[in-house]
């Protein structure tokens, strides 16, 4: 019976299709050809907009978080060409980051050496509310840390652990003049101001679990970070943050969820309240309270790792104290503003008046008003408090709501022309709406499940409103399939006109959560071409071939080696035994652009070195077998790169071969 029904159905469908085709063939040829012509013209327009001719440079740099790759990737916009991948929280065998003796310390934490992290949010440094192209701040979500990348060298310059934090998701948010980079905890955990261990049960969440917001001071000249103080906040989850601008410059806003304070099955437990909160903190006032000594000193234990510019050596410093501010002791420091549940993005418009909160589970986008917020505070129009922190009345702060924006609003950026653009995770689209009347004016599908958006300078007071990049979580059929795991994709959208126009898809590495984009002219002219050999103050640097040598100290052997096109000095080494700890301190003597030398040893249980011109890097090797072991340059440096190689003679344990070394059959000459 059922099969018969199916057959009839199928037949009917076939008939319908045939009829449709017949109808089309009669009347539709011309119009379908015309459609194709229009479509190909649109494609050609898009192609010319993203076409950067060979040898020409892109208009913008885009810095994308690598998400679970622990790296930052750099793309040229509008071409979508990948320019570089910068390792930050993850070891990178490609250049030895986290493997060389110099860089290992960068990944030290209070938990020991952590070779990986989940990097979510890049934020460019700012001067007067605008990106200045000096540094990029990024967060480690898993093992709480904040890193600073130097955009002269595109290297990680500094990594600081954040104590009293568990999941550093709500991070890092620089204020308008980089006074502070602000980092909030994702998970609340028991925090004891005396710094003692307490045996806490999950059931004690409401009483014992706390969140923390860290205020990291940034040195105006060097960019060096220092944890100035932390504010201990109610035990919610803190998701994202953003600083105010113009009139709201003194404030920073945080989205929270799990205001229910559930400790288990949070997908249900943290979704019970109809409203969660937007937390507003007056950071200027917080800094003032901290200066005035309102802080409690708390024992702590966290790592601060810095790369020295002259030696290229990273060193770790352990810090043992942190200053804590308690909001209940600091009136006017913090307020809570209700927002639809489980909000994600909090974005402040270029004028600094509107705080747009995107709630993934909400059907509207609430737009709060900063001036209303101040009035509400002044009138004390509170509906309650959480541990002494006033909760403002939703309706009093609200400026308006964007109705029917789409499903799953996540994050909003601005074009500086009065428009806001919100990503819709669930309905896979970007929605454009007016800040004037909160009306939706345009929408464009994205492929698929878009997370964050970025407009160059879209989080500053003057956006560069020409392009928007949507970062998608799901790619499926957009590219050639590559097995179960597919590249995440970014989509470049033209926002210069009334209607948004899709220009380009390009694959990205890891999972870009957020990105920043900046005019190329703010970075390119300062890009370092090579390091000065003269200024290299690495203690094991070898600046002349005549100074190369091999020295034994107990079971350690130190090789002071140089690399220059196209030979290693020394390239014949003997006097090494199985089980020795051999350290190759290799200095690249080149003083020219784009001439790194690589260095690798057969069977080394380690990565390679990639030594920039003028720098010194150290590779550790513990030979496992006796014999002749080759070593070579791994980066194709010149026509005789293949010849840039040598041998090490490894003698069995206990065999006393005297240390000897040479190049070209003789000891290295002057």
């Amino acid at each position, binding site marked *: 019976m059922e099969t018969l029904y199916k057959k009839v159905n199928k037949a009917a469908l076939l008939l319908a299709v045939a009829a449709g085709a017949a109808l089309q063939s009669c009347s539709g040829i011309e119009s379908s050809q015309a459609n194709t012509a229009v479509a190909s013209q649109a494609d050609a327009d898009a192609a010319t907009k993203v076409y950067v001719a060979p040898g020409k440079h892109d208009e913008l740099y885009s810095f994308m978080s690598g998400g679970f790759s622990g790296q930052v990737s750099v793309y040229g916009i509008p071409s979508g060409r990948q320019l570089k991948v910068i390792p930050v929280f993850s070891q990178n065998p490609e250049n030895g980051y986290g493997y060389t003796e110099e860089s290992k310390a960068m990944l030290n934490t209070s938990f020991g050496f952590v070779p990986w992290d989940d990097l979510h949010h890049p934020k460019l440094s700012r001067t007067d509310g605008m990106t200045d192209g000096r540094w990029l701040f990024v967060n480690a979500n898993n093992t709480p840390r904040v890193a600073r990348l130097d955009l002269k060298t595109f290297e990680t310059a500094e990594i600081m652990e954040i104590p009293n934090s568990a999941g550093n998701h709500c991070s890092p948010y620089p204020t308008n003049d980089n006074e502070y980079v602000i980092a909030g905890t994702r998970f609340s955990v028991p925090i004891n101001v005396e710094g003692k261990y307490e045996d806490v049960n999950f059931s004690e969440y409401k009483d014992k679990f706390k969140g923390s917001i860290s205020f990291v001071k940034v040195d105006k000249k060097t960019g060096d970070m220092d944890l100035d103080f932390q504010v201990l906040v109610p035990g919610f989850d803190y998701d994202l943050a953003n600083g105010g601008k113009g009139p709201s410059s003194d404030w920073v806003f945080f989205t929270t969820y799990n205001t229910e304070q559930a400790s288990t099955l949070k997908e249900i437990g943290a979704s019970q309240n109809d409203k969660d909160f937007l937390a507003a903190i007056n950071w200027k006032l917080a800094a003032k309270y901290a200066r005035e000594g309102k802080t409690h000193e708390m024992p702590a234990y966290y790592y601060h790792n810095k790369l020295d510019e002259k030696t290229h050596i990273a060193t770790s410093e352990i810090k043992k104290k942190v200053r804590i501010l308690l909001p209940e002791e600091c009136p006017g420091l913090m307020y809570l503003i209700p927002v639809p549940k489980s909000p994600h993005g909090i974005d402040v418009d270029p004028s600094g008046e509107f705080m747009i909160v995107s709630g993934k589970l909400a059907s509207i986008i609430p737009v709060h008003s900063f001036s209303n917020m101040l009035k509400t505070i002044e009138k004390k129009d509170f509906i309650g408090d959480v541990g002494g922190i006033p909760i403002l009345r939703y309706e009093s702060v609200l400026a308006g709501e964007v109705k029917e924006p789409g499903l799953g609003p996540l994050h909003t950026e601005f074009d500086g022309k009065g428009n806001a653009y919100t990503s819709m995770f669930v309905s896979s689209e970007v929605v454009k709406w007016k800040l004037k009347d909160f009306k939706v004016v345009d929408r464009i599908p994205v492929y698929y499940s878009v997370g964050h958006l970025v407009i160059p300078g879209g989080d500053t007071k003057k956006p560069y409103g020409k392009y928007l990049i949507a970062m998608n979580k799901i790619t499926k059929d957009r590219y050639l399939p590559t097995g179960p795991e597919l590249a995440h994709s970014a989509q470049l959208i033209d926002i210069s006109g009334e209607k948004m126009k899709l220009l380009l898809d390009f694959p990205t590495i890891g999972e870009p959560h957020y990105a920043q984009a900046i005019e190329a002219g703010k970075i390119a002219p300062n890009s370092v071409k090579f390091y000065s050999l003269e200024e290299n103050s690495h203690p094991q640097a070898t600046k002349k071939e005549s100074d190369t040598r091999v020295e034994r100290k107990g079971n350690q052997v130190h090789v002071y080696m140089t690399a*220059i*096109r*196209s030979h290693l000095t020394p390239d014949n080494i003997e006097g090494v035994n199985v089980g020795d700890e051999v350290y190759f301190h290799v200095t690249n003597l*080149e*003083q*020219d*652009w784009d001439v790194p030398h690589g260095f690798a040893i057969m069977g080394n249980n380690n990565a390679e070195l990639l030594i920039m011109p003028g720098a010194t890097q150290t590779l550790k090797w513990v030979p496992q077998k006796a014999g002749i072991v080759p070593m070579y340059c791994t980066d194709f440096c*010149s*026509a*005789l790169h293949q*010849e840039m190689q040598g041998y090490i003679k490894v003698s069995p344990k206990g065999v006393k071969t005297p240390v000897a070394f040479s190049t070209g059959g003789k000891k290295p000459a002057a």
Partner: protein
Amino acid sequence: MKTLHKLLLLAAAISLGLLFLFPMWKIYVQAPQYPEGLQMHIWVNKISGSTDYSLQNFNILNHYIGMEKIQPDSFQELTYMPYIVFFFMLTGALIALAGARRLVLPWVFLLMVAGAAGLADFYMWLHKFGTNLDPHAPIIIPGMTYIPPFIGSKQLLNFHALSLPGPGSIGIALAVVLGLAVFFLERRRKGASIKSAEKTLVL
């Protein structure tokens, strides 16, 4: 000597000072992988380049074809040439101040000889570096030599080399031109005064 002529000769002597401010000669090379180019600057007292490291980069490239390392210390000329320039500047100034008209032409002549000797020396160095190649060099192309152009351009393997006098050389040229001008102007003035003297005699 007329005051104006004395000043002109003084200017000639001083213009030689350009040799200490600018290179005498510049050699530019360009290759596909060196779009930004490399420059070698030859001064009266040193050899340098467009960057602090140009010389090192020239030497790195040159070692593949077995060219001898260019080391400024090995050029004796660079130590004594500045004194020769000082000598011409000093004597030029003294001749101008003393108004020693008869010494102007010998000064100019000597300067021209010195300049020519400098050029000849430069040419010989180019020839020596370009032909005296290490027989064990990695790249040997039978019959190929690498003499950079003395003046003008030349293709050397993948490198396009261009050689031109630098602003320092203008100092010498200026000194010669001014010196000669003073000599001729003075000669005409002298000729004119003799003629006018003859005239008075006739009258």
